[in-house]
Each structure stands twice: as C-alpha cells, then as structure tokens.
C-alpha cells in the first residue's frame, strides 16, 4: 500500500562504506490510503501527536495508521466553514488547531473535540467571516497568532485577551498582504511586494526591499528567507541592511520551507521538487532537479513541508498527497539474488551460511546449491551445484581447513575443495544416517566431523573418510535417536548438542555418555541454536531463549512470549561486541541485552531480508559483522552502527463505545481520565492507537483492565479491546505501546472506568437488606430462643410446682401429727392400732416418695394415696367427720394418668378448715370423681363451716399454700390461663353449710 521511492544521495558529507550506503525513502499517503484528496496543502501536529493534513477537499486527521476526514457536513461537533483547507497551525497554548479555509477561519478545540467559527473566540472579528485565509503564523508570544487574509490584510489575534487587530488596511495593501513571519522578535510582513515591520502598531516599510510576489517567509540561520513565485528564493541577511539576494534553489517558483533534524533547510518548489541546503554552505546539497534522480521523484509540485515531533520530514504535493521520509533503512545490508537465471524467478531461500576468512560468504540455498558471495565486490561470484537435484538443498556448511569446505545436503555429505572448486561425495549406503544431511560440525582438535541427518547423528573420520556410529544409549541405557540442529564444544571438551525432541544434550567424547539436560528439556524439546558465552550456554528453542549455566547446571534466564519476547521461535544466536545477543526468529531480528533483559525487535521494514529467518543459519566475522540467513536472502550488518528508534510515544484511547455505540462525552475521549457509566453500560469497546509515523504497523500494544485481566495482555497491533459483563465498580484500564523496535512507551495511558451500581446493587441498599436480614434473623432467633426459654420455663415451673406440691402434700404438720398420733397408741400400749396406722403412714410416705419422681401417675394409684391420707386424717381427728368416696367406673378402671395428689390440698382444705372447725361429729366429706369427654371431674363437697368462717378462724400463717400449688399445676396440665377449679359456697337455712369444689383435669 505504501508507495516507496528510494533516493540515493551522491553528495554525502559523512563518508560511509559502500556496504551501508545512506538512503532516503518516502512513504506516501494518497487517496488510495484514505486521504480525502491528493492536494497536500498544509500540515500541523497537535499536542497528542495527531497529524492534521489539509487538502482542497477535507481536513484529515492521521495517527500513522488510520485517516479520519472532516468535512463541513460531517463534523461531529461544531462546523468547518469550508472544505478547502488552505493553512493549519497548532496553538499549543490553547490546544487549538487554527484552520484557514477558503471561506473563513475555524478553530478546532482539541480537548472539546469541536470546531468553532473564529468569532466564537473572537466575537469582534466578524469581518473574518467568509474570508479566504492565506496563512496562519505563530506570533511573537505564545498567545499571539497572525492570520493573513487574501482581502482584508493581517489580523493579529491575542488569544489571552480574545482581541484582534487588523493591519494593512490600505487599498493597495489590503488585498496584497502576502506573507508574515516573526523575525528577531518582530513581525515581518510582505504586503504589496514591500517588506514591512510592525512596530508598536505601526507598519514600517523597509527601504530598498522590493520583493517579488512572495508566498512564504521563513527564518533560517538568522536570515529571512522568502519564497517567490517568480524569483525563487530571496534571502535578506538582516533588517539593518535589508539587501535582497537571490538564492538558486533550482527553481524560480518556490512555495515553502522546512528545517529537518540536522538543521538542513528543505525548500519546496512548484516545478522541481525539493532542494535541500546544508547550513553554513548556502549551496544546494541535493536537488531533485538532478538528472540522476529526477525521474524517481514524480511529485515536482511541492505544496507543503513539515517536520513532525519525531523528526520525520513530510511533504505535501499537488496530486501526490502527502509523503513522509524516514531514514531508517540504512543499518542493514541485504544480499539477494535479483537476476533471473535460466528463466526462473530469483530464489533466495537461504538454509545455511558460512563466513569464510576474507571476503567470501558461503550460502546454502534451498534447491539451488551453494553460492559464494564476495562481500568486497558485492557480487555473487559463483553458484555451485554439488550434483543432482536432491543435493542442491544445502542445510549446513562448515570448514575443516581454509580450502576444505564440508556441506550437509539432502543427498548426504560433500567436501568442497575451494581451491580446485571440486566436490567429493561421501556416503555409506549401509548407513541410513549418512544421507539426508541436516548438520555438519568440525570437532575442535580432532580429525572428525559430527554429521547429522534426519535419522540421527554419526561421526565422520576425516583421516580414513569413514562414518562412525554415534553412541545412542543415554545413561539409563535407553536408545536415543539424536537429530542434531546445532553443536558446540565447551572448555572441558564436552560436546553440547541442540537436538530435536530431546532439547539440550551433553555428549562426553571420552566416556561416550549422553546426558539429556532435563531442565532445558522442560522448557523446550527442540533446540535450534547454541551459543557458549563463557560457560553459559544460550539455547535458541522453539519455545524461546534459555540460558544454562554449565558449571552449576542451573537455568539463569528464560525469555519467552510469556515474559515479553515478541515470538517464541529462536532460529539462531550471535553475540555482538557490545555483549548483546542477536537472534534470528520468525518475527524478525531480536536484540537482547542479557544484563538488562531489554529486548529490541527489528522487523523487515528496517531493511531485513524478511521477518522469517532459518534454523542455525547465522555467522559472524572478525570485524564484528553478523550474518543471518532467511527465507529471502541474507541480512548482514555491523551491530555497532545499529541505531535504535527511541521515539515511543504514549498511546491514546481514541474511541470508547458502549454496546458498539460511541459514548457521548463533552470532550475527546483521548483526554479523559475517568469515564462514569451506569450498571447497564457494561459492554464496552475501547479503541486505541499511538501517534507514531514510523512503521506504525509494527507498533505493538499491551493493555490490562486491572482486576479483570490477570496480567498485561499483549495484543500485537490489534488496536481495540472489548469487555462485557463488567460488574459495578471502579476499573483502571492501562495501555502501553511499543515502537517498531520494541521500545515500550515511557508513559502508560490510564483510564478509570467507574460503573455505578443500580440502586439495588448499591452498598447502602445491600446494607439495608443485610440489616433487615440480620434484624429478621435476630427476631426469629429471639422468638425461637424465647420459645425454647418459655418451654424450658414451663418445664422448670412444672418441676418446681411438682416439687413444691409434693412438699405441700407432705405437709410436715400433718406428718408429724400423724406420727404423734401413732406415738399416742404406743404410749397407751395399743399395739394393734399403732401397727395399723404406722403401716398406713408408711404406705402413704412410700406412695408420695414414688410419685415425687413422676409428673404423672396412674389414676388408681393416686386414689390409693388419697385414701391413705383420708384414713390418717380420720385417725388424727378421731372420726370427727365421715368420708364418702364415689368414683365412676369408667374412671376407676381407666389407665388415665394424673398429676400426683392434685386434689389432696382441696381435700385437706375441706378437712382442716371446713370440718375440723365444725362442732360435733356430723361432718361429711364427699368426693365424687367422674368424667366428661375431655376431663376428669373431681367434686369435693364438705358440710363444714364454710370458707368465710374458716377465713376468720385462720391464724396468721397462710395455710392455702397447697391449694395455690394445685391451682398452678392444674393450669399447667390443662394448658389454660386459669385453673379449672370452681368453688361454691353452700348455704342452708342456718347460713353457711359447707363448700363445694369442682376440679376439672384434662385427660392425658
């Protein structure tokens, strides 16, 4: 896509060898590359490094890769007043791009990403509206901008005060204000062919300064250079002596000037291309009018010249668009066969090289035999085919003596006598391993070659010219088939082999023991190249580069794609005089500094044969030149002359899309530090780029979204990334780019992306939910606990009540009185009664003790206890009353369980309070026990003195403790709020006639 023109300079100030001749090349950008139009009128570079290119039809914004064109119809924000862009100036103070069109002055605010009519910033300058702008020039101070018009003279705009002043308003100057420049801190203006100076708002004409139709004024070497349409270049040495002299730039029609990084003046002509002048000499160093190269420079009509921030020189031409010169192809020399031979296309697949002492380089090719190249004359001096088609692919070349060259070819091993130019073929048909040669190596100090084929390695004895079988057992006795790519001998005489399938192998030539280096094999099983760096073996593998310390057996370094190596396949290794390793790879040449781990990548664009090199196809000579063969010839160079492109600007984020729709920001996304999104805007696309105009295709990127990407993602030259399903939170996107030499930018572009949670995702909402949940949990737990506690309390209460009840039933007063009664029988020698009641008492005590262990007892047993109690009460009270116990059969015969002695307190109450206090012996106690569907009903009726009278008789102490306990127990048993006990006071004609108590017990 790039139209390249090679320009060879004949007049070079610095002498260089013919091998590394200086070249200039241009890469051009035309409508074929997306430029809006091919008239390259003007250029400017903004603060972020975008190159703006004005044409007759549209304004172009270029980052080295993509061109975006602005027309007056399609600006995203604001308006371009016209599509004919005549002049551009970047104003770094305001970050504005000044745009002079054929119809008005526009200002593009870079940060706001918006076009404004100049009157937006200079409200009083409405005379500018619709004017054709001639040029825009930087003023004396950063805030001063000079705008020249075709019909209204000069406008001096002060961007700080937002004011302007108009100059050259005279009828003869108004339409003829031609050019302006700041010279010696004064504004020099050509108007009406006169040179003026503006001093304190006055326009002063310099005497003797008639100029001829000036297009442009320029200051170089303290002199004022004027580009004339008729007289070419006119030079004014000083304003004190304003003599004008003509400078012959090879054309009388000159339009523009620029100065390059070497302070050479570039002069753009309208009919003779570019002339370049060396400082001090004031003569044309090079002109495209030279007959030798005039035809190579088709763009004679130069409209504009511009130097960008990385010192590239740009030209804009009429019809040729824009072109950039970069002088980066001078470091590498190339050996390629270009001529056609026997009607075949040139074939430059180089499989092996051997640099012989002197000027000769042996190249082993694929299919075309061996070539011998003379570096001194830059010519291939002979092409030799060892014989037969299969012999013409030469995989390896070495020498056993200056005249004896050994060649491993597909047809086997050949010796080439360089003096006699004669080949000798050595093959042992009994040995499969002797053919399909891959590699040949001359053992140091031994008359032997190591030779490897596709089938394995053998030795070749140079004295008797016989193949000798290689020991194939490893130290574990295993048969090993070693196909060797590369070999070398260390200081102790061990042979190190770079093998296929086994990685790095050590062969002890005296013991014949083979040792596979497991640590290297774990890294890679295929070693292509070896280099012994003072006891450290560097092995180039298909998985990267590894350094193995022979003495300690330790791995010292590994380089692979995982830690930033541009590619994993290392074909060859050489070391330069500066201590750097150079590796031929499948992604160009890599320069690796093992001290700093710094990696520089050199790609084909720098002048290499190609990006792809070949296995173990490299060599070095005594002068320090390195040779690498690959798929398209041999690249050779002197590393000391190699210069690295250090310019590596920080990348930019160019576009931010949400669900493939550009985000609507109030400024250019490249200026944004933070982007805030809502929870649904979580599918984002970031497009990024770097403003590098040197080999932009080879610039690489790495990025990471912190907390999403585990590590840096190396994206190569892909310039976008998508992220989807981002959860709310704060993210930091980091971006870094490298230039074509693999130098990473110093700066890391960072963009903070904040995705706000939806209200239900917010921390406060979650907190509320959390607190609510906790509160609910607490309530639930509290309820459960209180439930458990309540149950435990009930149970405890039951137990306590039972105990207390039993205590109450075993009313000590009653007990001791009973015993006292029995004592009375004893004292009166009434043995029968003493024994009778003692037994009854004993039974009662036993029953009470038994039931004290149980919450519920059998109904019948409980009645037995009650009966015993009644009998003892009758004994105590000397039959003061009679008892009638009436139990319904269905209850008596039931197996109901009842709380022990639950009605005893009511019975006792009836006896102690009702009946004992009654006069006479007519007391009656009637106990009736029946049942309803759900309850056992106890009815206790006495004809005692009644509750009221009993209350009055009651002595201090509360005797109804047992009753109280029974109430509690009944409540608990029946699970009722109030005890199911009904007291009824009985009355007859004489008043109180006893008490009637009904107790209802739920059947259990």
């Amino acid at each position, binding site marked *: 896509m790039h139209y390249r023109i090679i320009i060879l300079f004949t007049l070079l100030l610095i002498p260089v060898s013919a091998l590394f001749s200086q070249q200039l090349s241009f890469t051009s950008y035309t409508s074929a590359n997306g430029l809006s139009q091919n008239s390259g009128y003007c250029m400017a570079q903004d603060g972020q490094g975008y190159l703006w290119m004005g044409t007759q039809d549209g304004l172009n914004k270029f980052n080295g890769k993509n061109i975006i064109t602005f027309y007056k119809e399609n600006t995203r924000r604001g308006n371009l007043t016209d599509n004919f862009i005549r002049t551009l100036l970047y104003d770094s103070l305001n970050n504005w791009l000044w745009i002079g069109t054929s119809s008005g002055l526009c200002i593009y605010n870079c940060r706001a990403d918006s076009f404004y009519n100049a009157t937006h910033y200079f409200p009083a300058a409405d005379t500018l509206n619709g004017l054709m702008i001639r040029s825009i020039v930087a003023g004396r101070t950063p805030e001063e901008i000079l705008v020249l018009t075709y019909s209204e003279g000069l406008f001096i705009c002060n961007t700080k005060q937002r004011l302007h002043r108009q100059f050259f308003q005279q009828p003869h100057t108004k339409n003829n204000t031609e050019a302006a420049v700041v010279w010696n801190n004064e504004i020099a203006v050509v108007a009406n062919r006169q040179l003026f100076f503006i001093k304190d708002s006055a326009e002063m004409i310099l005497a003797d300064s008639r100029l001829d139709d000036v297009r442009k004024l320029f200051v170089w070497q303290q002199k004022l250079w004027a580009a004339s349409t008729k007289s070419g270049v006119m030079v004014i040495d000083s304003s004190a002596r304003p003599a004008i002299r003509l400078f012959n730039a090879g054309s009388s029609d000159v339009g523009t000037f620029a100065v390059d990084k070497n302070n050479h003046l570039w002069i753009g002509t309208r009919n003779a291309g570019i002339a370049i002048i060396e400082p001090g000499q004031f003569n044309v160093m090079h002109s495209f009018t030279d007959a030798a190269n005039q035809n190579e420079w088709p763009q004679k009509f130069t409209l504009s010249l511009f130097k960008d921030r990385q010192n590239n020189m740009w030209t804009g031409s009429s019809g040729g668009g824009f072109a950039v010169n970069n002088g980066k192809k001078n470091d590498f020399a190339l050996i390629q066969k270009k001529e056609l031979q026997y009607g075949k296309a040139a074939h430059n697949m180089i499989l092996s090289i051997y640099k012989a002492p002197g000027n000769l380089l042996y190249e082993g090719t694929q299919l075309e035999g061996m070539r011998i190249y003379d570096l001194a004359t830059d010519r291939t001096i002979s092409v030799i085919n060892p014989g037969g088609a299969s012999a013409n692919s030469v995989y390896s070349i070495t020498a056993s003596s200056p005249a004896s060259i050994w060649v491993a070819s597909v047809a086997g091993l050949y010796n080439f006598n360089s003096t006699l130019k004669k080949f000798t073929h050595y093959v042992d048909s009994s040995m499969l391993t002797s053919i399909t040669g891959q590699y040949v190596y001359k053992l140091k100090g031994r008359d032997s070659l190591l030779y490897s084929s596709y089938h394995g390695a053998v030795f070749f004895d140079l004295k008797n010219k016989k193949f000798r079988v290689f020991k194939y057992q490893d130290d574990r006795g295993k048969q090993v088939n070693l196909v060797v790519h590369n070999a070398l001998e260390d200081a102790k005489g061990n042979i190190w082999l770079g093998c296929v399938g086994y990685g790095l192998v050590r062969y002890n030539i005296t013991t014949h023991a083979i040792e596979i280096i497991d640590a290297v094999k774990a890294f890679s099983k295929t070693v292509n190249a070896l280099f012994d760096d003072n006891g450290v073996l560097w092995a180039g593998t298909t998985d990267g580069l590894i350094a193995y310390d022979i003495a300690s057996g330790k791995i010292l370094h590994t380089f692979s794609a995982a830690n930033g190596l541009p590619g994993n396949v290392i074909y060859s290794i050489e070391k330069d005089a500066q201590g750097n390793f150079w590796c031929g790879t499948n992604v160009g040449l890599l320069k690796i500094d093992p001290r700093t781990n710094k990696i520089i990548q050199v790609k084909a664009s720098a002048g290499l044969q190609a990006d792809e090199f070949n296995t173990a196809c490299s060599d070095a000579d005594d002068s320090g030149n390195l040779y690498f063969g690959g798929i398209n010839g041999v690249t050779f160079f002197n590393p000391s002359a190699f210069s690295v492109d250090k310019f590596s600007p920080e990348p930019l984020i160019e576009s931010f899309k949400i669900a493939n729709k550009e985000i609507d920001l109030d400024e250019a996304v490249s200026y944004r530090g933070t982007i805030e999104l809502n929870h649904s805007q979580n599918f984002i696309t970031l497009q990024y780029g770097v403003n590098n105009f040197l080999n932009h295709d080879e610039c690489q990127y790495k990025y990471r979204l912190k907390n999403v990407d585990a590590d840096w993602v190396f994206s190569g030259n892909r310039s976008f990334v998508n992220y989807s399903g981002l959860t709310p939170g704060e993210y930091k996107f980091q971006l870094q780019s490298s230039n074509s030499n693999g130098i990473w930018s110093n700066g890391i572009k960072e963009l903070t992306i904040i995705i706000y949670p939806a209200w239900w995702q917010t921390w406060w909402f979650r907190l509320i939910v959390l607190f609510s949940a906790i509160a609910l949990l607490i309530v639930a737990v509290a309820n459960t606990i209180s439930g458990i506690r309540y149950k435990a309390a009930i149970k405890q209460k039951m137990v306590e009540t039972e105990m207390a009840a039993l205590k109450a039933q075993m009313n*000590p*007063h*009653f*007990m*001791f*009185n009973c*015993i*006292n*009664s*029995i*004592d*009375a*029988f*004893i*004292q*009166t020698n009434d043995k029968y009664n003493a024994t009778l009641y003692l037994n009854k008492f004993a039974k009662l005590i036993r029953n009470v003790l038994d039931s004290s262990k149980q919450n519920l007892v059998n109904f019948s047993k409980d009645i037995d206890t009650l009966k015993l109690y009644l009998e003892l009460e009758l*004994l*105590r*009270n*000397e039959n003061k009353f009679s008892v009638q116990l009436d139990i319904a059969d269905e209850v008596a015969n039931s197996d109901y369980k009842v709380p022990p002695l639950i009605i005893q307190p009511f019975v006792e109450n009836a006896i102690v309070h009702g009946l*004992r*206090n009654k006069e006479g012996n007519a007391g009656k106690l009637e106990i009736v026990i029946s049942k309803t569907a759900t309850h056992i009903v106890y009815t206790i009726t006495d004809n005692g003195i009644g509750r009221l009278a009993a209350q009055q*008789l009651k*002595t*201090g*102490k509360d005797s109804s403790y047992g009753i109280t306990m029974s109430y509690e127990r009944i409540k608990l048993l029946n699970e009722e709020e109030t005890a199911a006990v009904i007291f009824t006071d009985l009355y007859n004609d004489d008043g109180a006639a006893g008490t009637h108590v009904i107790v209802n017990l739920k059947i259990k």
Partner: protein
Amino acid sequence: MQTAIIIDDEAKGRLALKEKLKSYCPEIALVAEASNGKEGIEAIALHHPQVVFLDIEMPGMNGFEMLNNLPDKNFHIIFTTAYDQYAIRAIKYAAFDYLLKPVDIEELRLAIQKISLLPVHQTKNQVDLLTQNINHPRKLLNKLAIPTLDGLFFYDINDIIYLEANSNYTTLFFNNNTKIVASKTLKDFEELLGDDIFFRSHHSYIINLNYIKRYIRGDGGQVELHNGTCLEISRRKKEEFLKIIGY
C-alpha cells in the same frame, strides 16, 4: 413437784404427752387438759399451773393468741408443735423452750429441768417480745431475748454491732457502746440470727453488716466497724465476705 396443764386440739397429741409425763417426769403433776384456746384460758384461770404445755396450731384460737388473751402470765411455757419453722424461730428469739412432736423424752426432761431454774416473772416480757416478732408486718424477727447469767435481756438485733466468742459464752457489743455476756455460744447465735444482716466473719466473730465502715485489705483483711473496732476476717471467709459487701 410442779403443776402442769396440756393445751392441744388433738386428743392423740394430748394422750401421747400425758403418758410420757406420767412415765418419765414424775416431778410434773398434770392437773388439766384443754383441747382449744378457750378451754386453755379457763383451765389456767382455774388451776394456776406452774407449767403450760401449749400447742401452737389449734383451730379457733392458736397458742399465741391464747397467750395474749391471758391477763397474767406467771407460769412457764413449753411450746409443743409438730412443725412450724417460723414459729419455732420466733419462740427461740423470745428464749422460750419448745418441744417437737412426737416429743423426745430426753428433751422433755431437759426442758422441765431448765424451767425450774428460770424466774417466772420474765414470761410476760417474753410473750410480749414473741407477739411483737410474730406480728411484724414483714415477718422480720427483730427483738431478741438474750439469756445471761443475770437473767434475760431484751434487745433489738439491729442494735448489735458484733458478737465475739468467749468459750461457751458470747459477748455482744451494741451501738450504744454497751456490751453483755450471753450464756449462749457464738454458734447458737449464728443459727438464731441467720445471715440476713449478720455475717460470721471469723471463728470468733459475727458482725452486723450494717455497721461496716470500711474494709482493710490484707491476708484475710480487716473490717473496721462504726464504733472504730477493727476485726479480722478469716482468710477462708474473705471471698464470701467481699461478695456479700459487693466488692
């Protein structure tokens, strides 16, 4: 020979005691029996007994009420009761003797021996004290009859600052800077006074917790009382003491 009557509502109770007196206490001449308070008053008025065995629990008028209804109380009283912890404590506070039913013969004999040594004139004061204690609205026993070699003395227990053991006797120190020597052991007092406001702080002391001025730390520590007396706290009582005073 001392005359006696038995007042008990239970016939069997009267019978048992009567038979025991007859068999084992020849020095007692039982002159009458009564089955309730009313009969008791009549019997006392009629017979002027020297000793009254009085049951507390009786229907109608109980033993204490009966005593209050008597104009003169110039007789010894031995209370009989089957079981009544509260009443027994009150009786003890008044320094009356009591018997638990069924009556132990040895205790019966001892009680009869003891009363023969005591003067009868204190009975009224003792009954008054008993009544006061019984009728205390919150059932607190405040009044204490303290037997000494010089006879009974009546004190409010809240006036006691501390008690000090003195072999079989106990010296009581009061808040009016007086002291008396009681013919009871410190252990007797410990039982009698309980642990509401008194604390056995030492083998030799019971202190009234209301009179503690401060605690002085030490092995067991010392306690200074309101009258300036410093008393040792025994080491094994220290923890309990500190807990009680809320240290």
